[in-house]
């Protein structure tokens, strides 16, 4: 800094550069609006001088009536505390924003997502391709004026469905082609030349000819997935390999892109709740939690005590079931074909039983409501949870620990594999167990406590090597900490109501923006919602931990063997419903 003044707060920057940074004064909004041409300078100041080192979320918003698009950034300090929010605005007809990739590499995939769905160009982005859809897809679907083929009305509930309840098939009524497709006028499919994967392979081919000159080795592009037994779903990796060694690796996603955000903006607030279940379908209650926190911030309601305890109780049970599966399937990827996974699944089934008793569904729990939870514990379920938490699960986790942790094959395959240093992990915006395995004690339950987590006594699990083995150890230990929280919650849970106010089918949410985040089992799960005061969200964006943790996959795998890529992926613990949304 040429200036001697020390920056301690973002308001100092705002005060110093009033010509390109202004506070966001719209009612219900917060943060700062930065001029696009000073964005990089601003980011550098924020990261280097103010220590906001973790880029959490980048989201695009289309304000069609103001004829502009906005990119919203949330950055945090890994030492804890609240968010710094800043925004960049750009005209709708030629949306260009500088890429913040040079400062926050964790923006790479998120900027690609915005480019794909909003059509905002990010200048200086190293690899700006469509991510969820394919090259050649007509239009940018998240723009407010883009209509899907089954478009019926702007907002739900649709007049055709409510209150009369008229039922028809969308194929029969809505599109001339009797299918969920639409084409530009005058389009001739016989002339179409598919763009295919040329842009992806071009990125990899840049490095293809840089092989060893003396040995005249060949570098080869290998695709893993989307149908592959160890990619945890329809995930695909395009790897450039030299012999067995990975030179470069690109995750290819979008095979499960189910348009959560577009559907979410047509849905009413309450209708989105079951859709959040289907994001990270292994841990649905955590997803509910993030969404209700965001909307409750806007509505300014607080759930009653008992509901808070129930939320924490079930969020931690979800974390347990997720980690049991994550550990099991990591071992699957290591080649221990299904035996450890079956041990994990056995315990998970018992947790699912509790979910089924309490919420009515094994997986898609749809448990929380704005201002509470939907059902109280039925008779007998308290005892079931108590027996699990105090007796069975601690024992079983010790069993898994005894079988796996010291196992020689596990150690040889995991130690020193896929190493990410703390700096790298923060740089690539990793969160959750993956970040903590790299030695950064960042757990939102501690760093920025939500709900009633500040009342519980638990340790933030940290390991320091940043390899696959440490990621496994963090998950194992986190299960023990979750059990501690459950035990405390079971002891302290008060009697009382489970909802604030009366339950309603539809809620009105005051205008404004809010970001609710929880420490999900996979990392920071955030929901960014904008309300314009109506019954539907104007913008509904999910900050999916699996998606953003993918930034770590290539740096983990580069230089390693192709067989370790699968292990790295298992250790990242991704779920495709959340990556592709």
């Amino acid at each position: 800094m040429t200036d001697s003044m020390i920056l301690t707060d973002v308001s100092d920057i705002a005060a110093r550069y009033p010509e390109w940074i202004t506070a966001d004064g719209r009612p219900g909004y917060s943060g700062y609006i930065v001029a696009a041409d000073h964005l990089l300078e601003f980011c550098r100041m924020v990261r280097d001088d103010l220590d906001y080192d973790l880029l959490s979320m980048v989201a695009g918003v289309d304000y069609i009536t103001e004829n502009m698009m906005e990119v919203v950034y949330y950055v945090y300090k890994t030492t804890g505390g609240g968010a710094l929010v800043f925004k960049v605005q750009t005209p709708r007809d030629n949306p260009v924003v500088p890429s913040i990739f040079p400062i926050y590499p964790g923006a790479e995939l998120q900027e690609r997502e915005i480019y794909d769905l909003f059509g905002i160009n990010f200048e200086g982005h190293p690899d700006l391709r469509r991510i969820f859809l394919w090259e050649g897809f007509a239009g940018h679907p998240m723009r407010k004026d883009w209509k899907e083929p089954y478009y019926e009305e702007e907002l739900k509930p649709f007049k055709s469905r409510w209150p009369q309840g008229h039922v028809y098939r969308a194929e029969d009524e809505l599109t001339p082609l009797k299918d969920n497709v639409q084409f530009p006028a005058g389009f001739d499919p016989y002339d179409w030349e598919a763009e295919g994967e040329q842009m992806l392979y071009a990125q990899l081919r840049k490095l293809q000819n840089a092989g060893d000159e003396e040995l005249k080795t060949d570098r080869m592009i290998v695709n893993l997935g989307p149908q592959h037994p160890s990619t945890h779903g329809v995930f695909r990796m395009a790897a450039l390999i030299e012999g067995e060694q990975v030179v470069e690796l690109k995750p290819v996603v979008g095979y499960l892109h189910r348009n959560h955000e577009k559907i979410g903006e047509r849905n009413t607030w309450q209708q989105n709740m079951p859709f959040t279940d289907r994001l990270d379908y292994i841990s649905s209650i955590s997803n509910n939690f993030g969404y209700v926190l965001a909307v409750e911030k806007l509505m300014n309601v607080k759930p009653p005590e008992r509901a808070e305890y129930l939320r924490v109780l079930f969020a931690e049970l979800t974390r347990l079931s997720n980690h049991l599966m994550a550990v099991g399937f990591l071992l699957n990827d290591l080649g221990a074909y299904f035996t450890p996974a079956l041990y994990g699944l056995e315990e998970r089934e018992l947790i699912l039983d509790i979910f089924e008793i309490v919420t009515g569904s094994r997986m898609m729990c749809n448990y929380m409501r704005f201002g509470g939870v939907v059902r109280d514990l039925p008779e007998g379920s308290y005892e079931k949870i108590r027996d699990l938490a105090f007796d069975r699960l601690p024992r079983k986790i010790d069993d898994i620990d005894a079988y796996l942790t010291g196992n020689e094959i596990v150690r040889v395959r995991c130690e020193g594999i896929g190493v990410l240093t703390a700096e790298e992990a923060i740089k690539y915006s990793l969160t959750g167990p993956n970040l903590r395995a790299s030695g950064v004690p960042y757990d939102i339950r501690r760093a920025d406590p939500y709900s009633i987590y500040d009342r519980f006594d638990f340790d933030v699990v940290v390991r320091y090597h940043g390899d696959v083995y440490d990621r496994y150890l963090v998950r194992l230990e986190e299960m023990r900490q979750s059990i501690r929280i459950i035990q405390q919650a079971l002891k302290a849970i008060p009697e009382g109501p489970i909802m604030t106010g009366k339950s309603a089918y539809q809620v009105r949410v005051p205008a404004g923006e809010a970001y609710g985040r929880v420490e999900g089992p996979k990392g920071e799960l955030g929901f960014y919602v904008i309300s314009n005061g109506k019954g539907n969200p104007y913008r509904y964006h999910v900050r999916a931990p699996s998606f953003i943790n993918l930034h770590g996959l290539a740096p983990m795998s580069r230089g390693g063997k192709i067989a370790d890529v699968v292990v790295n992926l298992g250790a990242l613990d991704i779920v495709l419903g959340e990556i592709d949304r």
Partner: protein
Amino acid sequence: MSTEELNTPGMQVPPELQNQVSITTLNRIYNWSRRNSLWPMMFGLACCAIEMICAAAARYDFARFGFEVMRPSPRQADVMIVSGTVTKKMIPQIVRLYNQMPEPKYVIAMGACASGGGPFKEGYNVVSGVDKFIPVDVYIPGCPPTPQALLNGMITLQKKVDNESLKEVRWYKKGASEPIPVPVLGPDLMDPRKFGLIKEESQKMLEQQQMPGTGPAAEEAPAV
């Protein structure tokens, strides 16, 4: 099929040979052996895949019913369980996998999404049911179906296999069966069987736009 049914083709076994010789028809013994060794493909799409894993795991264990082991390769699989939302980006691969499976092959559409689009039907990247492209034998409702529902669906498939006749099945007819044309990703998903229709409709739309005073332009995406 119970052992009794299998062994009583309507022919009387002499009393002295009972419990030593069993008589059956070719159809019955063939279907009986096939229905008890249907191997599913290890092919998970979305949420339903997790329930499929649960159905394969210790508690529900579909190996008890002859779905012995899941094969990751389509070449070794008999049943494709389409377990999850079928997206436009994924359907070319699904059709290709289906084409790679050797006959006889069966398809189970597991859950609401695979059967008809489910909660995500209105999404722009979602195919309204896998049966738009590949033939489906059994539909299982649910979101996601419980492992019990999946088992029920699989047993239903076994009943279907029981009723097949060697004389009529497709895979003993002359000539190879036609592969399903793989969909193409264009401005939207294009089914090669419908290219003519797509062209026709797009032309119609163009004419409508060029005609003055026909109201708003067709609802189309802006050019990329």
